[in-house]
């Protein structure tokens, strides 16, 4: 029987949720922390780093027969083709017009305390102290019926005590801990989005799973190669797509100039990153065994980080996808 103390103390529930998010993020090589590396590591001397590297190389030469082995990193096209093969072998999770596509995720984002969300309009706002907000959201979207969104703030963190004080003095007007928004209408009735392209159900289902053609269509819709990357990310993340088209979208990623694949040793997750000219780096993390997009994150680097007054490598937005499915009504959970 669950101990009632957990429910009597909201702080204990919040603590559990934030630890859980951190464990899962850490487990798959991601982190919702404000910097990608712990500070003590940043302070390590170059001599020490060189010494550790030398020992690692020596050990790998001597012990290459056992333990965790470093996977040879495949090139992007090969890696994406492998994931596409997995996607193709999976059953379709595709709703009818009157059914709902369900998605739950944990979103964390960095917000200037004195600015409205996502409006880095002035230099003062860019430099303002930031709050890192994590919230869990669920959405039910349908091509023909009104959808629903629920969100619940699970965590706020601050880079400094002064940022926390500032937040405490202003937060009452800024953040609704639990929100529900009903009556969300589809962009157009009986239409589905493939990237930024609106299609009928019949058009979507008959779209040729051809990466070359898909790239051209998405480029025409978005205008730039990075926009193709973000349209694919949006589609894989939060929209219903037939398996063969999902497979083709993975293959289309390898056509985006500058996209890079990394596959950390010993993990099932792979990451594709794209560095943008403005200093942001976009990353998609997916499971190679299920071909599901697990995470999406945006990292501020170099001049962009300086502009935002945050350490280079700060994650400005991160989404961890938890569940996707098809249900019969808004508010219903997939089995």
């Amino acid at each position: 029987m669950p101990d009632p103390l957990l429910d009597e103390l909201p702080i204990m529930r919040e603590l559990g949720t934030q630890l859980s998010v951190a464990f899962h993020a850490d487990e798959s090589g991601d982190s919702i922390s404000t910097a990608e590396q712990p500070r003590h590591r940043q302070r390590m001397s170059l001599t020490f780093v060189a010494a550790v590297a030398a020992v690692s190389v020596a050990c790998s030469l001597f012990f290459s027969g056992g333990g965790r082995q470093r996977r040879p990193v495949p090139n992007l096209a090969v890696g994406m083709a492998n994931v596409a093969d997995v996607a193709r072998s999976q059953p379709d999770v595709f709703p009818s017009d009157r059914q709902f596509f369900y998605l739950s995720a944990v979103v964390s984002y960095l917000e200037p305390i004195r600015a409205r969300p996502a409006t880095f309009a002035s230099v003062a706002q860019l430099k303002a102290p930031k709050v890192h907000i994590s919230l869990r959201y669920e959405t039910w979207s349908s091509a023909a019926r009104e959808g629903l969104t629920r969100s619940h703030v699970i965590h706020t963190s601050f880079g400094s005590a002064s940022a926390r004080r500032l937040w405490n003095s202003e937060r009452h007007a800024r953040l609704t801990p639990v929100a529900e928004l009903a009556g969300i209408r589809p962009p157009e009735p009986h239409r589905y989005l493939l990237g930024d392209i609106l299609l009928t159900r019949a058009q979507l289902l008959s779209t040729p799973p051809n990466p070359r053609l898909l790239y051209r269509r998405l480029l025409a819709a978005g205008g730039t190669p990075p926009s193709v990357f973000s349209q694919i990310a949006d589609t894989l993340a939060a929209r219903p797509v037939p398996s063969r088209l999902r497979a083709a979208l993975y293959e289309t990623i390898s056509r985006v100039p500058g996209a890079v694949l990394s596959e950390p040793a010993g993990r099932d997750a792979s990451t594709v990153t794209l560095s943008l000219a403005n200093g942001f780096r976009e990353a998609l993390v997916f499971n190679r065994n299920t071909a599901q997009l697990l995470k999406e994150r945006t990292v501020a680097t170099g001049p962009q980080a300086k502009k935002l007054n945050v350490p280079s490598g700060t994650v400005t937005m991160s989404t961890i996808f938890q569940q996707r499915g098809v249900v019969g009504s808004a508010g219903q959970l997939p089995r």
Partner: protein
Amino acid sequence: MGVARFKTSPIPALTGEEMERMYEENAPSLLRFFARRVSSPESAVDLVAETFAAGWQSRSQARGQSAEERRAWLFGIARHRLADFRRRGYAEQSAYSRLGLTRRSLTIDEFERIEQVASLGKLSGAVRAGFARLSESDQEVLLLRIVEERDYPELAASLDVSETAARARVSRALARLRRLGDYSDDLEGLNA
């Protein structure tokens, strides 16, 4: 117990899901454990957070695979954190911070509820006075047995000793408490 501890076959590291389950099962007990041993509710919550974060960092060293064995491992970490707290005078948050986490302050309702949890309400004023004069180690076993009403297998797991040793420690602590005054009504039925 000794055999389980020195098993040579590797035990897989705890997963995020297993740690979540451990939190559900053990966080309330850990909060009670800390709340009754430190003066501040804020510190008690910090120590719970730090215990799980430190547990996550050393998950590859988790002993055993049963819920009891894992609980014992977690309480072992908690005791280290408590000792560290007593030495420093504040709750260290290094493992928790390393996960990139901070938490909000307690609300006044939460503060009061944790204070309530921390109270030794079951004990009469006389026993409390005697209790305060016992050693830290005697207080520990009596808190677990009398205030938290742990049974002996659970008590043994929390102290990381055998059940026989746990019974002996409770018995000795009760004997020392009795020598400090006549608490027969309060302590009835609690003999080891």
